[in-house]
């Protein structure tokens, strides 16, 4: 059994004294609260990296775009392929820390809309973000037809 005795702060214990050497009597409580918040809010940080990476899919009138966050990857180590309606992105990163070298491989396959001109797909890599542009087929583009109303 544990007996915990709580003492209420008195005027003496609250007054800043030299005994604390500039440290507040609440310093321990404060760091405890910080720790609680860090534990609770730590969930909001980006998900841990496995062998996948986050992608975004956008479209405008003429193209579909895939943006993938791949920081620190060499351009030569990125392979983008179109297999039927699937876009596959493979990348690897080597990281040097001192004399050690670590390699990470990432791969992801996404299904893209059917109306893509697979032979005209292009990709660019800048600041750790890969953008793949997938042009839409002619017939897929919206056609404007004005109809006369009689």
């Amino acid at each position, binding site marked *: 059994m544990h007996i915990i005795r709580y003492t209420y702060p008195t005027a003496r214990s609250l007054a800043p004294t030299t005994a604390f050497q500039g440290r507040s009597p609440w310093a321990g409580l404060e760091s405890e609260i910080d720790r609680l918040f860090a534990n609770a809010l730590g969930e909001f940080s*980006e998900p841990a990296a496995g062998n996948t990476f986050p992608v975004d899919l956008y479209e405008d009138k003429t193209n579909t775009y895939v943006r993938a966050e791949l920081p620190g990857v060499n351009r030569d180590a990125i392979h983008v392929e179109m297999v039927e309606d699937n876009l596959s992105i493979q990348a690897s990163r080597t990281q040097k820390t001192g004399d050690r070298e670590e390699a990470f491989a990432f791969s992801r396959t996404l299904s893209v809309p059917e109306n893509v001109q697979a032979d005209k797909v292009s990709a660019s890599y800048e600041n750790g973000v890969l953008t793949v542009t997938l042009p839409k087929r002619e017939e897929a583009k919206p056609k404007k037809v004005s109809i006369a109303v009689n």
Partner: protein
Amino acid sequence: MSLVQSIVPFLARRPAPAAELGATVKPQHTLREAPDAWTLTVYLPGVTKENLEVTTEAGALSIVGHRVWQQPKDWTALYRETSSANFAATFEYDLSVDEEKIRAELKDGVLQVTLPKAAALQPRRIAVQ
């Protein structure tokens, strides 16, 4: 410093930078130790050198990265996994880091911060007279 602030130091602290940045997200990072330095690797995709702030103050290294890319007006997002929030992270260090010699390098969205260990704390041989 007022009495209240000396009792509750929290009130004397600067407001978190997140207040001006809006919602922020903590970037992925790794920390590695070598005999003479620590290496902090922070992944900041889409951040350029001009949009990155690395500051040290009172034993804390803070990193704020703004995303440069904005979704063009005529683009429609069909599916998203990334966030548009800016990156922000603060790392605290103690006296074993030589603050004057901290170096940072950004390449392809990866920031490498080298925190050399203070020479005063490295083992030293004392000659006996």
